[in-house]
């Protein structure tokens, strides 16, 4: 008699932890590509996602950079929005009440011109109900002061991390820029400064020239490149950072399909963020949790973390 092996179907568990934050699945909407959430009303079921990361907020409203702010490149998008936002107070007053009703984790992205501003904003958000984590933008390539200035200097990145951690008990995610020589150096610094997680990558600095009008395509000359064009670079950097720090890493960069997301999870990311893809098709992220689950079920993988490849 042949001894037949019993196959017990796995029921994959998509939930993950980022510090004390528990997400029902590893798919998040990336800051700057999902507005303040409500813009997506009727086009995407937010409740199906692990979380949403609100557009970067500053202490006072910012009007952003002059147009043109966008340039399309092969498989990519250059932008120089310049962190246009309504400011933290207007957000709390006008947007947050509606966002409290969504059945997904709400993460707020902040950006400052000084360590003090980051501290003040984190403290302000800490008092508000409904916010589950803070993502700290030290990586925007499109503004002169603040933003990337903190992300390219490991010491400054650590100072911001320190300040924000001191200001809030919420989990703190530091969003890194790829526009550095060695991203693991900044990653290690923010990890040892107490960050609960790291997200990467923000956009890659790039440019395009309009040869008809003989001028840079963006009014700001340089902009941040996103979209599928940057995925291999993002994946490589996620792989490196995952192996350099002990805190969870959230992968970002050109993800459109479940397969893309799986690549990042295999590189060791605990979760992924969907950015430019939402601009092209608002419902993109909605299909990813199911796609990831299908793969895990077919391959007998029980937890998201078990997707990670060795070494």
């Amino acid at each position, binding site marked *: 008699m042949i001894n037949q092996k019993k196959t017990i179907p796995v029921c994959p568990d998509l939930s993950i932890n980022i510090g004390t934050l528990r997400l029902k699945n590893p798919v998040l909407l990336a800051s700057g590509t999902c507005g303040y959430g409500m813009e997506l009303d009727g*086009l995407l079921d937010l409740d199906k996602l692990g979380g949403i990361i609100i557009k970067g907020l500053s202490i006072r409203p910012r009007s952003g950079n002059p*147009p043109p702010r966008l340039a399309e490149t092969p498989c990519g998008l250059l*932008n120089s929005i310049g962190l246009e936002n309504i400011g933290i107070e207007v957000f709390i007053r006008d947007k947050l009440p509606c966002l409290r009703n969504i059945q997904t984790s709400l993460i707020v992205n902040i950006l400052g011109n000084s360590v003090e501003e980051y501290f003040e904003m984190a403290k302000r958000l800490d008092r508000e109900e409904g916010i589950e984590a803070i993502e700290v933008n030290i990586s925007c390539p499109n503004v002169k002061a603040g933003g990337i200035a903190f992300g390219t200097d490991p010491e400054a990145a650590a100072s911001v991390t320190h300040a924000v951690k001191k200001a809030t008990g919420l989990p703190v995610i530091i969003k890194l820029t790829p526009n550095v020589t060695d991203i693991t150096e900044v990653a290690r610094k923010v990890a040892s400064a107490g960050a609960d997680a790291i997200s990467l990558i923000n956009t890659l600095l790039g440019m395009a020239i309009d040869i008809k009008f003989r001028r840079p395509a963006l009014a700001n000359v340089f902009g941040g490149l996103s979209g599928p064009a940057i995925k291999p670079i993002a994946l490589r950097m996620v792989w490196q950072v995952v192996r350099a720090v002990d805190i969870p890493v959230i992968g970002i960069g050109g993800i459109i399909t479940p397969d893309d997301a799986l690549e990042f999870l295999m590189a060791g990311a605990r979760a992924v963020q969907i950015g430019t893809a939402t*601009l092209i098709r*608002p419902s993109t992220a909605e299909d990813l949790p199911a796609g990831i689950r299908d793969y895990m079920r077919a391959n007998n993988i029980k937890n998201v973390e078990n997707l990670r490849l060795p070494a």
Partner: protein
Amino acid sequence: MSRFDIPANIVEQTRLAHSIFLLTVNAPAIMDSANPGQFCMLEVQDDNSRDPLLRRPLSIYKTGSNGKISFLYKEVGKGTRLLSKRRPGEIIRVLGPLGQGFRLIHDCPSILVGGGLGVASLLLLAQRIKQPHRLIVLIGAKNASEIPTIEDFSRLTRYLHIITEDGSLGQRGVITELLNQTLQKITDMAQIYTCGPWSMMKAVYHMARKRNIPCQVSLEAAMACGTGLCLGCAVPKSNSQGFLHVCQEGPVFDADQVHWG
């Protein structure tokens, strides 16, 4: 605000002139809630292509019976070239209707001023004007081949005036001359609605302002999302206090709101 992102069946793709096309798709949900001046974002290629990455924004030109909507567009680059290759029977993803369209002001003469392909956002408006005897349509272009859909307008009003720079259709000259002639005949309050090249709309606005006639403009901008997510489609405000966003607050604005430069 009902918006839909749906796979729509292409029912017609017609080349009307050298680089001008009329694309008709079956999209009943979008048709039902479309207002004059609104637009859609169209995926120019099928699902797996990433180049070009972005959808293309096109004004809703016409809504037909049984759920059809049409877009009048010009081939200007890679995206619209690929779009023009799509054939009836194929499926195209359409997101819409988007943005704030024209606010219809009744009980006064309506003057529609279209420059070239700017007419693409004016037809639906002309159809919805309740008093056709007070509808004046002025259309200007470089030459006749730029405006191949004149009959769509001539059906709606007796007061259709055309001007082309080379005189190949209607009067010879530029549209501001037509508008000037029209405004001289108008004694009471009127409303101007315009869409066309930036410089033309700027001139129209200045003429309107001189006579205290309210003017609504439909603007165009490079867009990524069309839904207010990216804030890419910024246009400076007239008071120099920040920016308007064409996709969400527009594409139609009171001309006074815009910094014309």
